[in-house]
């Protein structure tokens, strides 16, 4: 379930198009009844298959997860035998539950790793915006000119994003192996790797993984920004140059504001992607032996699937869904609103 799907962006436009397309073809006044039937038949034909898939593979699983999350279920017994526990799976994750007998134990065993995983997600959101955005913008602005090998440079920059997460993860596992090339290089300059190893060190593990995530995704930002920049008219830049604007002033006052919508969409994708981050941390070592770089998705998988605590795992899944959903809606309603309201107006 992705927030994009949840927000209805996939299903919405299909309805509009099919209804809009059916009207001008035949005069509506002559056979109003037949037209009505035809209109609905077209809607059913075009929207039906997508709607069935959406209901089966998106809505139904979400509803099921919400249902499972209210039960204590080990995934082995029949679900009909599972014990209804209300919202206690949620409270166990959020603050250790309300039962004084187990609250302290649950806090350490469940609440703490949950918040730790969630804090990693938010740290990645913040760091992505703080580090990837300026880096990508700078690279995109620098590359936004004609020079030899431009296409090649762009491919190289985009290559990490195209690589499958599993292949990239395996590659970095080899590079950051305690005896791997990264260790040899750091030793060559007189430093040593973190005491617990690159990935498993309680302090440094997260940063190693953040480095890999940046390497993997910064290419997407650069390509998006370059695409946005190619839509900025050169006349504006020339005019500014004639008026005596410096390179920096042209970027700051013309190029960056004009690709604002692109930047805002990238930030949206980055935020949602950070909340759902799973593949890479799972391939590396399931979020780390002690959750050094766990994310809420890897935590859900660890507890729900591998510990067979299905009700609790479902509660985590629902929390993750709600979080993506609320953030996506809030972002759409505030930051993206001006872009959506009048697409022709660039700012």
């Amino acid at each position: 379930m992705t927030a994009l799907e949840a927000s209805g962006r996939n299903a919405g436009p299909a309805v509009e198009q099919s209804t809009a397309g059916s009207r001008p073809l035949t005069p509506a006044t002559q056979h109003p009844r037949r037209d009505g039937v035809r209109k609905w038949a077209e809607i059913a034909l075009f929207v039906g298959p997508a709607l069935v898939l959406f209901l089966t593979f998106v809505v139904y699983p979400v509803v099921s997860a919400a249902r499972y999350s209210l039960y204590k279920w080990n995934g082995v017994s029949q679900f009909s035998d599972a014990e209804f526990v209300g919202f206690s799976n949620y409270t166990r994750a959020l603050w250790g539950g309300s039962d004084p007998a187990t609250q302290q134990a649950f806090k350490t065993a469940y609440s703490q790793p949950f918040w730790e995983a969630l804090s990693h997600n938010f740290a990645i959101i913040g760091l992505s915006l703080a580090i990837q955005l300026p880096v990508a913008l700078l690279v995109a602005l620098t590359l936004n000119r004609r020079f030899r090998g431009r296409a090649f440079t762009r491919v190289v920059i985009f290559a990490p994003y195209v690589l499958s997460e599993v292949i990239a993860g395996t590659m970095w596992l080899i590079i950051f192996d305690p005896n791997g090339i990264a260790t040899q290089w750091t030793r060559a300059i007189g430093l040593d790797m973190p005491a617990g190893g690159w990935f498993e060190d309680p302090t440094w593990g997260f940063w190693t993984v953040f480095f890999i995530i940046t390497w993997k995704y910064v290419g997407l930002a650069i390509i998006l920004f370059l695409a946005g920049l190619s839509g900025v008219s050169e006349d504006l830049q020339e005019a500014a140059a004639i008026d005596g604007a410096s390179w920096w002033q042209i970027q700051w006052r013309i190029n960056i504001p004009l690709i604002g919508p692109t930047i805002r969409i990238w930030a949206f994708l980055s935020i949602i992607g950070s909340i759902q981050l799973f593949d890479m941390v799972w391939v590396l070592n399931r979020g780390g032996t002690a959750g050094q770089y766990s994310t809420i998705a890897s935590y859900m998988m660890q507890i729900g699937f591998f510990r067979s605590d299905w009700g609790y795992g479902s509660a985590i899944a629902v929390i993750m869904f709600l979080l993506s959903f609320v953030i996506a809606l809030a972002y759409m309603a505030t930051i993206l609103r001006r872009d959506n309201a009048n697409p022709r107006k660039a700012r």
Partner: protein
Amino acid sequence: MALLAACSSNGGDGDATPDAGATSGGGGGGDEPVTLTWWHNGVAGDTGENSLGDYWDTVAADYMAANPNVTIEIEQIQNEDLQRTRIPTALQSGDAPDLFQQWGGGEMAAQAEAGYLMDLSDVLADDIGRLGGGVAPWQVDGVTYGLPFQFAVEGIWYRPSLFAEAGIADVPTTMDELNDAVQKLKDADIVPIAVGAADKWPAAHWWYNFALRSCTQDTVANAGTSLDFSDPCWVAAGDALQEFLGTEPFQPQFTSTVAQTGATSSAGMVANGKAAMELMGQWNYFVYEGFTDGSDEAKAALHEDLDWFPMPAVEGGAGDPSAAMGGGDGFSCFVDAPPECADFLAYIVSDDVQRGYAEAVGGLPVAPAAADAVTDPVLQKIAQTTSSAAYVQLWMDTLLGPNVGGAMNDGIVNIFNGTGDSQAVVDAMIAAAATS
């Protein structure tokens, strides 16, 4: 249990022609056509070799030849897929395979409690008696829900040449002697012990062995059903582990090391002579072979310099010093399976098929009468230790099931990471027990 997949990677080339039809146990016998579905974890390894899967094919073919009305349909499924996804889903759907892999312990108890498993206690009473104490992990409250075809204890694999280089004359039999050997190896600039802590369970097995020594037999065995961890011996196990970790016996960055994949894994380190010891089950015999080029000479050269000794006794605990941790593989029949399922299971664990299993696959059979089919001296040592142990305790994570067992393993790895302590392991187990 993640590690059991490893046992299917190789084997000898002894041809097994078991005497099909020489089965004990009731059931079957009719002429009605019956189809049995059978899911097991004998899949081809990296080399494409699949001695276990091939052997089960032979076993099924022989049984079908002797019982023409029975058709056996086999599905080979990778171990984790089978255990974590395929079997649980199939059991809930009600359309489960008739005969399927069973690892025993807490997970099997949960399946039995949900009413998925056939009670084999009466139909296979003779076979249960013949197999002896190895059946215990496949029993819940005295009721047998499965039979093992393999069972063995774990111990320490080591490279005698590295021991000689460090000047260690005899294999350690006590923890003091082990600590002494560790020091000598370090002095000789050799990594004493390799552990694949990134996979969690290999690290956790050290704690299991300390718990086996600090707790009485009953405390450990009953923990599977009582989920009671109030005895201070559980914390003592973590203390013993922390004390052992303090001697720095493992390779550097052990929490970044996996158990079986690649030359820098713990098994790879031992196979390549980069580490002297590793605590592991009998399957590592074949895992180590996987790091050779696969030729007979290379394997022979490896086994020339590879030996095994039981986990040294920890002094001063409530447990018996000669007790051992162990585990195995078995099969269960689905509750709605035809009676032929039990009959076929009895055939699988019959003395001759067990002998063939040892010869063709290199496994360690459960049937005492098949013990003579184990010819490799190291595997014989493991078999002897298994049968002479005061008692064999099933892997703790299998015993406790995925929920409490998983919490335990995570807690233990936190000790290895330096982010947890002895009490935190027990607290995590108690918390998980409160949710199950």
